[in-house]
């Protein structure tokens, strides 16, 4: 049962983390290039427009859920399982979500890169 709780926490963490990353990415694309906006409007207006964006608030909320799911997962399972499993699944989940919801062109180069990084993260646990 403890094993099932651990994997439930990992899945919740991955889902919330991917949701947060997609929402934050979408919010920042809509705000525009921060470097250009900083030059033309100043840093405070850029910070204000980011903080006022509704998707930014939702993204932060999703990240908070991921953080608490990680805390609960760590109270039930080993960090050597939870950290690499959640990190590598988040990489793969982000690639799928970016293709579906952000319409990013995920070509073979990016698929290989994500696969290498996800496998590498798993190996870091040993």
């Amino acid at each position, binding site marked *: 049962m403890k094993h099932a709780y651990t994997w439930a926490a990992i899945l919740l963490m991955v889902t919330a983390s991917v949701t947060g990353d997609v929402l934050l990415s979408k919010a920042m694309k809509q705000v525009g290039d921060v470097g250009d906006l900083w030059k033309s409007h100043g840093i405070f207006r850029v910070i204000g427009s980011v903080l006022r964006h509704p998707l930014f608030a939702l993204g932060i909320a999703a990240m908070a859920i991921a953080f608490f799911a990680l805390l609960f997962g760590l109270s039930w399972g080993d960090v050597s399982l939870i950290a690499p499993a959640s990190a590598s699944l988040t990489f793969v989940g*982000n690639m799928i979500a970016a293709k579906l919801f952000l319409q990013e062109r995920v070509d073979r180069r990016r698929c290989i890169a994500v696969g*290498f990084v996800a496998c590498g993260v798993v190996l870091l646990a040993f």
Partner: protein
Amino acid sequence: MTFRKYLVLVGVAVFGSVGDSLLSRGMKDIGTISLTHLQSLVVALANGWVLGGIVLLIGFFAAYMTALSWADLTYVLPATSIGYVIIALIAKFVLHEQVTTARWIGILLITSGVGFVAGGPALTPLPDDSASDPRKEHEPELASLRGHS
């Protein structure tokens, strides 16, 4: 990609990994925090290592948001995963931890992944229909924002 944009990606990797390392060092001083004694978290905020870690993680978040404003999510995440390598090197050479062969292979794989993605474009072209372009959806708002300058 300009030199400044590469610096932002380096900032994401370095601030995130060094910030995590500082938090880890600080929390070793604080000890285990149980869910029934959450007030220990307030005590942790007075620790210099933890404070330094929080400052760097704020820097990480600012750099991450900046990178997402001009690059794809599927570019930023693998490109900045070099931070895992930085953590392993800090563990080996600063904290004098044992780094196993499997970890070195993992580091090699991550570095290869970063090399793969860094050689490609940061922002892929969007589909032809501008209706699905998130940057076009809010064009009126952004135009009014630009008008304030």
